[in-house]
């Protein structure tokens, strides 16, 4: 138990370091790229001295490190800043001489409004992926080199060859535009999550299928499986109580690594379906040079990564006690 706490402490510390590193990198990168956000905010017609004044007011002309530290101090207090370009209603506000900054939305609100929707999407996608991938992978592994294995291989190959944005367009075209069975563009209820989730599921299912078939087939080869049958356990019991557990660890590890892919997929899918989640917000913010929002999103996503990787390691160590923390 004590060791567990030590492990958690170490990982959280490392996680904080990673978050710090990434957020600083993003921070610096944003300040370096051309395309002055202030000008974007105020409009192209604004005289230079107004731009300079505003910039200095916003603190954008101070040294990099100072800006960063000031920002992090705010983060500690829960203050993520205000968007450069969005109003609370969600509309983009730019090119407006009227610099009433009270009108700009709080980044925290922006993120708080979109993050739950993205979790919903990712969650549903994961459920779909498991429904598709686990039976195929399991059967493929149990009957290695026979038809279930081939089926798993075909399905995995087809799914992995489908470009996700193309599939999204196709599905929206067919099921929403032509057939009218299920709405998908925008968001007006849970059902709008279904098609986007399906697209993401198709993207992550193949790697789970492949990994599971290999893992299950490898476990079946282990001596203790045959010996369990000789000791008197039924085949069904061996598969359910033993093979599944032993095959799980490599697949779990996969989740940690594939998180990046998942997030990328979420981003594209939200963009295509205009689904108002964090991904959509990200694309908009980058195209509009909305620094505070981009910064905050980078930190949020990195934190989610760190936490999920931590969770995966903990669950793996619980399933297979031999793994050292």
């Amino acid at each position, binding site marked *: 138990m004590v060791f567990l706490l030590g492990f958690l402490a170490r990982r959280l510390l*490392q996680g904080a*370091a*990673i978050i710090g*590193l*990434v957020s600083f*990198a*993003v921070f610096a*990168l*944003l300040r*370096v*790229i*051309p*395309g002055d956000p202030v000008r974007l905010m105020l409009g192209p017609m604004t005289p230079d001295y107004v731009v300079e004044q505003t910039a200095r007011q916003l603190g954008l002309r101070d040294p990099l490190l100072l800006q960063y530290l000031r920002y992090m101090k705010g983060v500690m207090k829960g203050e993520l800043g205000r968007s450069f370009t969005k109003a609370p209603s969600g509309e983009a506000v730019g090119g407006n001489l009227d610099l009433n900054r009270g009108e700009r939305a709080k980044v925290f609100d922006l993120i708080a409004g979109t993050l739950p929707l993205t979790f919903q999407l990712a969650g549903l996608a994961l459920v779909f992926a498991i429904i598709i991938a686990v039976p195929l992978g399991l059967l493929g592994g149990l009957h290695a*080199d026979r038809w279930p*294995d*081939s089926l798993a*291989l*075909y399905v*995995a*190959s*087809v799914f*992995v*060859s*489908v*470009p*996700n*944005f*193309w599939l999204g*367009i*196709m599905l929206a*075209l067919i099921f929403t*535009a032509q057939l009218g069975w299920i709405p998908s563009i925008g968001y007006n209820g849970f059902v709008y999550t279904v098609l986007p989730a399906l697209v993401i599921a198709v993207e992550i299912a193949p790697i789970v299928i*492949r990994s599971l078939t*290999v893992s299950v*087939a490898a476990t079946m*080869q282990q001596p203790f499986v045959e010996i369990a049958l000789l000791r008197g356990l039924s085949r069904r019991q061996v598969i359910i109580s033993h093979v599944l557990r032993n095959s799980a660890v490599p697949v779990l590890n996969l989740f940690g*690594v594939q998180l*990046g*892919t998942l*997030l*990328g997929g979420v*981003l*594209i899918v939200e*963009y295509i379906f205009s689904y108002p989640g964090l991904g959509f917000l*990200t*694309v908009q913010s*980058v195209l509009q040079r909305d620094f505070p929002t*981009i910064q905050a*999103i*980078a930190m949020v*996503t*990195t934190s989610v*990564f*760190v936490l999920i*990787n931590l969770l995966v390691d903990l669950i793996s160590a619980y399933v297979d006690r031999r793994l050292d923390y």
Partner: protein
Amino acid sequence: MSTTSPTDATSASLATAKERSAARRMWAVASSYTQFRIGLTIFVILAIVTIVWPLLSSASATKLMIADRAMPPIFLGGRWDHILGTDQLGRDLLLRSLIGLQNSIAIALAAVILMFVIGSVIGMIAGFFGGWLDIILMRLTDAQLSIPLIILAITILTVSRPTPAGVILVLALSGWPTYSRVTRSITLSERRKEYVRGAQILGASSFRIMLLMAQLILPPIAFVAVLDVARMMIYEAILGFIGIGVQPPIPSFGNVMADGRKYLINAWWIATMPGVLLFTSLLSINLMGASLERARNRLYKGTI
């Protein structure tokens, strides 16, 4: 604790096993799978078409021919000289897609080579030396891993007009951590094997030993890298689709389909036909790759 008992049965069967090299056996088994053959057929056809068609066709991928704009593909009543139809500016879709395919493969290949080299070198060094070097390199890997490709791409490629070199760099940066992790874990387990100890006893330097291990470790990973070419082609298309990949007028799957998004209702083929071509080419690569992977697993299991 355990003492290996005489395994004469095993050694006898090894001695009588065919002398053909393992790689050749693997290819023989893989090519016997139906999946492999389907994939190979598609691949060959596509390869021929990609090389030959642009030379034969009178159409141009980049010249605008407004008169011909938005023509539907052949199965919807179009003409034979525009089999997949034309886009909103009259450019032949098949031609644009094929050239897009060439560009796509070139970029993906370059990216995969780059990420393979970077990732495996870092992974081997981390796995071999261990200790502080390992910790630092792995934290670096984790940090890179936690920046999703999209965010990285968007951040870097909006610095200036995205060039193919920039796209290759971004793809490679997003991909090397996986290679470094896998190489590291294989290196860690190989390192404990006796032949490494044997080499150390002989007095071989670390560099020499790593070279020795590399010959054994890298081929299976290089093998997975081939499949990654397909994955990178999709990412390159995604980047093009959002507008930060290869820029027009150079055709790439992404930007061709992005253009077509606006015409989805009237001329839906602009956005979808190139996708069919991409899907087919990827399917061929993946079918072959998956068959090879299965054959390789059987090789290591000892059933072939």
